[in-house]
């Protein structure tokens, strides 16, 4: 049975230990802010200022019009104008340019006579992601140009036109996708790196026997140890959300209480998992290593945080269903960007609660084995 005095005593002891360990505190409060600033400000997948070389072999007004269209898009910064296609190679080799656009001789003549004119794009494919997006922008500009030419030369309007709209993240900024996800990742760091040490530390220092000889029950130990980290985690969620919204303008369209509730459940599960690892591993070194592999990395890689689950091969897609961060991420993004609430996210909410129960049970049971 849980005794409140004993529970709080364990929590106080753990909090004291944490307070005396500046590095854990840095990890708890400085790292989240650091990550947020990195992702909010410096690190992005948005492709802008694509360094471009232009080889205009046609030299007509039409060709210049096309180059201007690239320039006007704001995505391409033209850093070189070359006379010969042979000059492209060295620039690509050295990484000076990302893409080269070649307008062949006869370009304007082809357009004028209704033949298919060609624009060649040579892209540095080594960074496939950036290359795909750069080619995408190129394609889009070529298409707009095509439609304009059709209209100008033949008075033909395309029978169908598409009106594209982007919802939830209207400016398509990777910042808006990453900041809500960071909340989940940071919690997994706390669970994987900090909690996984707590029980292993007692074993290594030999204080576990002392703890076992006190009247404290194992549920009290587990819950007591969990409380300070729970507090840290919730403060981090609030901190990240506030900074993300105020400093980086990430939209927050949902209900803050629902987010905190889901965070509470998710955090409880993650911390329980961390403690379970700690109890099983017994040494701090091994505990952190397992913690990294079992909690932090899946949250980072398999949750859809940055890499779309749709693109993964089937076995990995199946695996993602066992990564709780995956569901939590749906909640944070739903609340931040989509402004949806429990009516849409109730499945995820229930899964978070199930995760919390499972994490706590695992931690208490593993701890039991150790003492006996």
């Amino acid at each position, binding site marked *: 049975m849980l005794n409140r005095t004993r529970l709080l005593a364990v929590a106080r002891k753990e909090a004291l230990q944490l307070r005396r360990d500046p590095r854990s505190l840095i990890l708890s409060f400085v790292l989240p802010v650091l990550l947020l600033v990195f992702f909010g400000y410096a690190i992005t997948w948005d492709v802008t200022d694509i360094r471009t070389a232009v080889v205009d072999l046609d030299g007509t007004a039409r060709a210049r019009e096309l180059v201007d269209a690239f320039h006007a898009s704001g995505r391409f910064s033209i850093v070189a104008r070359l006379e010969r296609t042979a000059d492209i190679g060295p620039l690509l080799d050295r990484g000076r340019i990302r893409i080269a656009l070649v307008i062949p001789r006869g370009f304007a003549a082809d357009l004028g006579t209704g033949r298919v004119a060609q624009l060649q794009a040579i892209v540095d494919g080594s960074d496939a992601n950036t290359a795909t997006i750069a080619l995408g922008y*190129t*394609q889009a500009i070529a298409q707009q140009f095509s439609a304009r030419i059709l209209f100008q030369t033949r008075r033909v309007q395309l029978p169908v036109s598409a009106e594209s709209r982007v919802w939830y993240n209207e400016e398509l900024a990777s910042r808006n996708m990453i900041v809500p996800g960071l909340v989940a990742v940071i919690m997994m760091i706390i669970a994987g790196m900090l909690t996984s040490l707590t029980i292993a530390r007692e074993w290594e220092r030999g204080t576990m026997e002392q703890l076992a000889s006190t009247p404290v029950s194992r549920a009290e130990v587990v819950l007591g140890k969990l409380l300070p980290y729970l507090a840290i985690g919730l403060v981090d969620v609030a901190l990240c959300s506030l900074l993300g919204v105020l400093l980086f303008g990430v939209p927050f369209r949902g209900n803050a209480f629902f987010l905190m509730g889901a965070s509470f459940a998710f955090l409880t599960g993650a911390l329980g998992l961390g403690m379970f690892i700690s109890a099983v591993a017994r040494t701090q070194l091994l505990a952190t290593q397992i913690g990294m592999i079992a909690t932090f990395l899946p949250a980072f890689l398999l949750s859809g945080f940055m890499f779309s689950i749709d693109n993964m091969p089937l076995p990995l897609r199946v695996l993602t269903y066992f990564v709780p961060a995956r569901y939590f991420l749906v909640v944070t993004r739903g609340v931040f960007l989509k402004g949806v609430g429990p009516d849409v996210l109730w499945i995820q909410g229930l899964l978070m609660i199930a995760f919390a129960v499972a994490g706590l049970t695992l931690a208490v049971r593993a701890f039991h084995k150790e003492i006996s």
Partner: protein
Amino acid sequence: MPGPRLERVREMVRKELLQVFRDSRLKRMVFLAPIFQLLAFGYAVSTDVRRTSTFVVDQDHTRASRDLTDTFVASGYFRIVGRSDRPRDMVEALDHGRAIVGLHLPRGFSRDAARNNARMQIVFDGTNSNTATVARVNAERIVQIYALRLGGLEGHPPLELRDRAWFNPELRSRDYNVPAVMGAIMLILSLILTSLAVVREREIGTLEQLMVSPLQPRELVIGKTAPFALICLGDLLVIAAVAILWFRVPFHGNFLLLVLAGVLYLLSTLGLGLLISTVSNTQQEAVLTSFLVIMPTMLLSGFMFPVSSMPEVFQWLTLLNPLRHFLEIVRAIFLKGAGLDALWPQYAALLAMGTGVLGFAATRFRKTIA
């Protein structure tokens, strides 16, 4: 002062390696961590956009509208996850995250198409900005091709784009990501193993024993770094082999140059590990500090996020990051087959940083144990 004695160093290297390999769990870490990361980066970390889940609202119910959705499916970029004739269902599918793209073909679509002014709406879930950007370009292209065909233009727009990707013709993100894993793994292992090896001795009190032994500080430094350098180089070989043989990443460069880059890179990372050991008293502190160093080093290296998209201040900052230079070398050797003529600045940077960091670390290390 006499130089380092070979047999004493050799004994210490042997002892350190024994300690790592006797600890079966530690041993597993040394080998499992690279494999796990390789699998993740080979399979999970794909930024290619295919089979995007799409919800179709077709209020027109004509052949033209069905043709258009078929064109979307046939492209391979989209897969239909649901159909309805109420726009509300599309909103719900996007809200729930069941679909990322919504196609809305309004009533009268084919009638308007005959009069050359049909409009359709495509909605994208921008939550994943990357996927949405690529999906949008694909969708708009498909609509244009469809429109040209419908207009009797046989799918030929007046301007056609011929694109070609150098160095990675199929634009597989795997080819870019998998070789880079060696940089990340070597960073993680050399930081954690080196700092722990010293701190563990400090914790269990055997560092004093080492100090009273005839080992000189310099020998101690070598003895505490060389074994992990060997392990890391072993991992480099394993990762290169898996990348080339299993993931079929092309290798166009010189293998010895790759190993040389690895050695120069290790100077910096081992130096960092040693530095961490001088400021840590417990294993826990060492692991946490390593983690605090590893995170920003990886994020600001171009490992997953391109340096060229960072603000200029940060781009300059990354020049101080050994991982950035090492990754540039690795990727250029694998994909471009580049040699020293193109890569010498990176090699020089690694050499300068490595000797600087390791030298500084060794001095500090000697002070803390003296």
